[in-house]
């Protein structure tokens, strides 16, 4: 899958989770503005992200949700349950899309067009909520209330029909004439004035860079808005520039270009009226020959002449050479006229004629040199388009090969940047690692433990077979070292696999809310210890049983508000889910203050279903009766509801917990409530097992289940009700032969004193003796579940590889018996 899409989906799920949580929290505290802002931000970001992909359905719904949230955040409409319901539904829809996209093959997100009608409906629901509420909230016009997402629009300015802002600019006469002519020919130009604000440098702006991007101006002026102070007092970072230019561009492009500083520019399309008005405005002073010409006029004059000189210097002789020569002559004539030197133009016409006749620029050159000696070698670029060919504008643009704005690389600078970037490579604090990689580490450490366990065997062989005690001792010492490292390593890997129970808990607020609504109950959920950690496998195994337990509590435990009130309890029921760590176990307690479990009802039911006989009906203590809910096929609900019924009872819950070596304890008081306590190992990766021998084979038994091992003399075994039993410290223990349980055709072997080895195991608070041939040492193993067709053998918890390379089958006493 495309990594960006992958990232989007995974982040999207996180966002949806957080959005759901915030919505529920807001129901509790609708006035919490921090929460509201956070919620808005989440929806807003998720919408923004969805826009990166072609997911119109998702974006549509999120957009509507964002607008709604925006209105809520601004206090335009109130936050309440129907609104939360609607938003939750919208988020569920988004979750569906995300799941669908995640499952689709290929790199690009699949089309979700088949959800278009749902998206439309949801979008409309959200919008209608927005409008209805806005209207009812303060009677304001909804059209005004709805945030209309104003389209990005170039600031007005260009097209405004305002009086011309074009000051009488001292356009050189030839340019003015040229512009008029080109306007007549259908050209379009803009006049621009840009006065960057004084602090603009402190906003990262570079007005020169902005101007340069507009291409070559036909005319430009750059001056300061104030007189410069003495250098010593100059503040180089207070921008006082004023740019003016006539550009071959459109107002639209200028509006777009200056969209960040619309208040600092003025521009308008150039029209003939403006140009001629400007002429009229300054016609008087310009024609008085005794007027001292401005420096700029001088400069422009020089530029024009220099440009003509350049044109004349062109060595080619195109067919339009005549036109070019005439244009030069016209420009020269106009230029001299503009500075009051009309009298000097007289000799120009003959020079032009001579040039045309000889098809050579030399006569014009000579005329020009006589009147205006070349000032300096530098190349001036005044507007020089009056050369007949319209294509000259294009030629004037920087050629592609010209190094305009491509900064040549400064090696020193680039090295500096390179190092800088690497130096600052701060690693993120958390890593997201693929589960597969952790599993691989787990497997490796498993192999390490197995390999390490081979060392004591080796030491034994060194001593017994080869008779080198010294070496045996050294091997054992070395084993001690490796053992310690392996244990630490194992512990470290375990730590990596640890996950907080919040992974499971986080779904409860929504679950409880939804179910409680559906059942018409009022429930306050209290969760504690969400950060308690356990192995990933344990946490995952916990998910379904916990959901089941919570559903049971809501369905059967907690009463309706009316029933609670009648019983003198608060209308709102309380459901608490607490987690904490106790030594190497995780304890999870689910408690409600509901009606509790009535032991008599359980007894009756169990009896009706044939789970107990009449004698037991009498004999069972209340606690024992309550524990009957764990019996297979027991369902306490009078009616099978659509929530927790369907025949899946607490027996399934108990078995699921037992599979990860957990236990479950149920306490209940009629009228007061029910408490379920789960106890789970922190980790299930390493199992401490006892090795037993039976019928010449070795088996493992998880130490969790082993209460003790004893030798029982054959003479102490009595047969009561066709079951062999023995007394152990005053307690009657039933005995079962392992060979019988495993259907091995062999008698259990007693030792020389005719004593049988008995493994006392505890299953559901009951003690039971399993007769084996011999009990051996205990070892740590990495238990692997049986796979393939062996997986169906529930009597075995799994298998493990031993240090000598043999395979140990580990049985599961609960299932075996």
């Amino acid at each position, binding site marked *: 899958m495309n*990594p*960006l899409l992958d*990232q*989007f989906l995974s*982040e*999207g799920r996180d966002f949806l989770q957080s959005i759901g949580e915030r919505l529920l929290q807001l129901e509790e505290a609708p006035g919490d503005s921090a929460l509201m802002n*956070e919620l*808005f*931000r989440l929806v*807003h*970001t998720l*919408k*923004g*992200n969805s*826009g*990166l992909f072609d997911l119109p359905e998702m974006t549509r719904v999120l957009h509507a949700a964002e*607008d709604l949230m*925006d209105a809520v955040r601004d206090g335009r409409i109130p936050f309440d349950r129907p609104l939360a319901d609607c938003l939750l539904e919208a988020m569920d829809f988004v979750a569906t899309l995300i799941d669908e996209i995640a499952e689709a093959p290929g790199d690009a997100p699949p089309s979700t067009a088949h959800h278009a009608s749902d998206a439309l409906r949801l979008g409309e629901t959200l919008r209608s909520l927005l409008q209805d509420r806005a209207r009812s909230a303060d009677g304001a016009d909804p059209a005004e209330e709805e*945030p209309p*997402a*104003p*389209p*990005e629009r170039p600031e007005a300015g260009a097209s405004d029909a305002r009086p011309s802002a074009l000051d009488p600019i001292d356009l050189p006469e030839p340019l003015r004439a040229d512009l008029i002519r080109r306007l007549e020919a259908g050209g379009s130009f803009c006049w621009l004035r840009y006065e960057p604000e004084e602090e603009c*440098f*402190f*906003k*990262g*702006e*570079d007005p020169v*860079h*902005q101007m340069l*991007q507009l291409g070559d101006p036909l005319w430009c002026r750059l001056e300061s808005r104030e007189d410069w102070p003495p250098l010593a007092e100059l503040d180089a*970072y207070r921008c006082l520039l004023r740019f003016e230019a006539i550009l071959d561009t459109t107002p639209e492009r200028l509006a777009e*270009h200056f*969209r*960040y500083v619309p208040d600092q520019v003025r521009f308008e399309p150039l029209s003939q009226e403006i140009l001629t008005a400007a002429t009229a405005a300054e016609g008087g002073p310009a024609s008085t020959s005794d007027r001292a010409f401005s420096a700029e006029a001088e400069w422009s004059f020089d530029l024009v002449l220099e440009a003509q000189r350049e044109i004349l210097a062109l060595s080619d002789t195109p067919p339009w050479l005549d036109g070019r020569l005439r244009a030069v002559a016209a420009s020269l004539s106009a230029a001299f006229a503009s500075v009051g030197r009309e009298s000097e133009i007289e000799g120009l016409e003959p020079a032009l004629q001579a040039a045309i006749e000889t098809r050579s620029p030399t006569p014009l050159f000579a005329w020009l040199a006589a009147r205006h000696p070349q000032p300096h070698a530098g190349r001036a670029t005044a507007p020089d388009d009056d050369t007949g060919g319209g294509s000259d504008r294009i030629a004037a643009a920087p050629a592609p090969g010209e190094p305009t*704005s491509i*900064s040549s*690389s*400064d090696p020193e*600078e*680039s090295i500096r*940047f*390179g190092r*800088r*970037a690497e*130096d*600052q490579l*701060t690693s993120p604090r958390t890593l997201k690692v693929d589960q597969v990689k952790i599993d691989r580490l787990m497997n490796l450490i498993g192999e390490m433990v197995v390999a390490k366990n081979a060392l004591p065997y080796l030491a034994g062989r060194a001593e017994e077979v080869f008779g080198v005690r010294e070496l045996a001792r050294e091997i054992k010492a070395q084993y001690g070292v490796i053992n310690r490292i392996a244990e630490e390593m194992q512990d470290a890997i375990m730590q990596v696999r640890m996950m907080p129970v919040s992974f499971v808990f986080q779904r409860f607020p929504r679950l409880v809310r939804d179910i409680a609504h559906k059942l018409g109950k009022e429930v306050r959920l209290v969760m504690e210890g969400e950060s308690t950690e356990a192995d990933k496998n344990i946490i995952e195994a916990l998910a379904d049983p916990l959901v089941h337990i919570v559903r049971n509590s809501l369905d059967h435990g907690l009463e309706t508000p009316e029933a609670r009130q009648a019983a003198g309890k608060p209308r709102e029921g309380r459901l608490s889910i607490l987690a904490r760590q106790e030594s190497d176990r995780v304890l999870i307690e689910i408690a409600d203050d509901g009606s509790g479990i009535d032991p008599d009802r359980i007894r009756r039911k169990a009896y009706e279903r044939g789970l107990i006989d009449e004698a037991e009906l009498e004999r069972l203590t209340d606690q024992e009766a309550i524990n009957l809910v764990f019996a297979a096929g027991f369902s306490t609900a009078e009616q099978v509801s659509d929530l927790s019924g369907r025949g899946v009872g607490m027996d399934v819950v108990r078995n699921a917990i037992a599979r990860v070596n957990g236990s479950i304890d149920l306490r209940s008081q009629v009228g007061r409530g029910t408490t379920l306590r789960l106890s789970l190992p922190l980790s299930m990766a390493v199992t401490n097992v006892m090795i037993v021998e039976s019928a010449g084979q070795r088996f493992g038994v998880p130490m969790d289940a082993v209460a003790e091992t004893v030798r029982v003399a054959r003479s102490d075994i009595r047969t009561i009700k066709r079951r062999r039993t023995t007394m152990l410290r005053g307690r009657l223990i039933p005995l079962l032969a392992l060979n019988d349980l495993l259907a091995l055709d062999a008698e259990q072997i007693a030792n020389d004193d005719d004593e049988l080895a008995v493994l006392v195991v505890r299953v559901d608070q009951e003690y039971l003796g399993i007769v084996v041939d011999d009990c051996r040492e205990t070892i740590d193993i990495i238990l692997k579940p049986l796979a393939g067709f062996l997986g169906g053998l529930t009597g075995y918890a799994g298998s493990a590889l031993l240090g000598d390379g043999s395979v140990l089958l580990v049985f599961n006493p609960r299932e075996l018996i």
Partner: protein
Amino acid sequence: MSKLILVVDDSATMVMSLKASLEMAGFKVETAGDGVQAMTKLKGGVKPDLILTDINMPNMGGIDFIRNARALPGLRFTPILALTTESQQAKRDEAKKLGATGWLVKPVGGSDLIKVIRQVLPGT
């Protein structure tokens, strides 16, 4: 010489998308998940040629970040572009007032992004 761009956004998806576009155009990219992280980087010596920052972020949002970043001596003149959505005109104006150079409207396409960066950053 490749320019360094600091991308500040709380969404890892957005960061990934922007980073890919920028790197494809030859920029170096540093990233931060919120204003606080970005400030830490800047104070730690990262000197970007341009900053792209989201507005809505936890811990320290874009508006505060722009204000704080501008107060750092090395960042007085650094171009800063705010990443906004079409409905955030008010935020854009505020960002601009506080020292942003300009803004982009999300979702930002790769070519638009580069175009705007070239517009504000000389020598690219």
